[in-house]
């Protein structure tokens, strides 16, 4: 296993960083836009809230792979454009991430009892103080585990990028396996790489859940 790792370390590193780059870009696009849309949809615009709900339904029923392939082949064919597979993956998974985040935020925003805000008003707090000290911390505690869990799923979805030739970890593992044919060592290394990324993330999610869910029990 170590021999494969050392011998093909540049490929492994390339794949590892490609996966991280993919994930980072998807997160950078999906989370801020998702939070913005979620806040608007959950607090200010019922219409947007409905659109988010509909979009969430659509992204849930269409398999990720189908969406990715549809964006990569037929759509680009119809529009006579060629987009780099990396960006096609970013668009597809970023869209899914954005809609999922927006949906979580808008639902949870509506679930924060109105009475908490009113308590703040009657204690003389202004809107900004209420958002900063009450609603935002509550929203973060309620949504953070769900959003992080979403990012873990996104990381798993990046595996599909290998099918449209993005040289991420899985694609790299397949490439190395084609050259060295040591499937046990190669795929065991793949498991370790994913454990290194997903393990801490899941530990963090569980810690947040245990810490904050007790406050609402």
């Amino acid at each position, binding site marked *: 296993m170590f021999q494969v790792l050392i011998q093909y370390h540049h490929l492994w590193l390339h794949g590892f960083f490609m996966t991280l780059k993919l994930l980072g870009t998807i997160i950078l696009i999906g989370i801020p836009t998702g939070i913005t849309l979620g806040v608007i949809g959950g607090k200010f615009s019922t219409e947007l809230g409905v659109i988010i709900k509909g979009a969430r339904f659509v992204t849930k029923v269409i398999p990720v792979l189908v969406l990715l392939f549809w964006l990569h082949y037929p759509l680009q064919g119809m529009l006579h454009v060629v987009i780099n597979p990396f960006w096609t993956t970013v668009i597809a998974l970023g869209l899914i991430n954005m809609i999922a985040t927006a949906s979580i935020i808008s639902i949870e925003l509506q679930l924060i009892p109105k009475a908490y805000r009113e308590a703040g008003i009657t204690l003389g707090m202004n809107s900004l103080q209420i958002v900063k000290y009450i609603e935002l911390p509550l929203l973060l*505690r309620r949504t953070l585990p769900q959003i992080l869990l979403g990012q873990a799923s996104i990381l798993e979805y990046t595996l599909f990028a290998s099918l449209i030739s993005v040289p991420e970890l899985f694609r790299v593992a397949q490439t190395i396996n084609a050259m060295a044919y040591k499937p046990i060592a190669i795929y065991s290394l793949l498991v370790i790489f994913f454990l290194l990324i997903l393990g801490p993330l899941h530990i963090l999610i569980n810690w947040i859940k245990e810490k904050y869910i007790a406050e609402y029990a």
Partner: protein
Amino acid sequence: MLNITHATKKYSRGNLVRGITDVSLKVETGEIVCILGSSGSGKSTLLRVAAGLEPLDSGSLTQDPNIFSSYVSQEYTLWPHLTIIENMTLAPKLNTATSIENLRTEALTLLKRFELEDYADTYPTQLSGGQRQRVALLRAVIMKPRILLLDEITSALDPELTKSVLDLIRALAKDGYTMIIVTHHMSFALSVADRIIFLKNGSVAADQTTHEFFFNQSNPEIKSFIIDIAKKDDMVEIFKGVEQFQAYHIGLIRKLPECSIIHVAGAVGNSWYIPMGDFYEKYEHLRHQKKIIWKMVTYEQGVIDKRLLKEFPEYNQYRQMPRALQNPANYNVFGDTVITQIFENEPTIIQIRSQHVANAYLRFFEELWELSK
């Protein structure tokens, strides 16, 4: 202090249109007003209007300048991500010049006074419903409001927890807060309120003094409402500890109509004055203001009793029991209520609200009075 004039606020819930119509309400400093009425009569809407949480469709709400009012609702509103002490100090920390150390000390003092200090650093979910509502009340109190608006804050609680919250309100009433309280606890309203507002279909059906409302009620509909609700109230209530003892007596003197008589039998010297502490002066002030008479028959006259009899003979009637009749039981009778008081260790009042029992005790009192000189 607070003036609501011709206020109308309507809202629809399905096919139902609810709210208040043309309601006027004026509350003076130190006054305690209870709002009663069947469910859906507009009680909560009126209170939310008074708290400025509902914009009016028409009419006006005016408040003396620089008067801060705090509203506590029937829902649990403690912020779940903050500890009890953080819940209590957040708003004053942001909006007053008081330092966080002083606020913390102030909050701890309040919590200690109401036996909640052990929960200072816990989260709201670790508290019972009654404790949560008491903390919500104290969170409002720490802002030093001039008016407390309390909206059925016991509606979600069982009787035991309800009592703890009502006792806290009694204690705050004793401190001189102006309060508007929506409640369905008749005995509580009777014991703390100066005035009762009765709402029916969103309009004021009665605005009377507490005594008039409960004892001289001419409106048959309100009368039957009182009887129906009173049936659900406890006939026997116990008030334990100095805080409740003081609150009970201050509340009693507030609610009794002018020129009432409190019949006091079997008092032992100065026992009563000790748990009353500093509040005795407030009690006496209110008693003289309302010309309420103590008709006392005791077997031993205390120093303060002697002084009162000398200084204010018009408010104190006194006879001493023959030694042979020595009866250590202390009981007071007023209206339809009898109370027995215990002064040892923790001062305690046992209240029985029953006209029959009160009549029997009153007959016994009159016999003692006749036998005494």
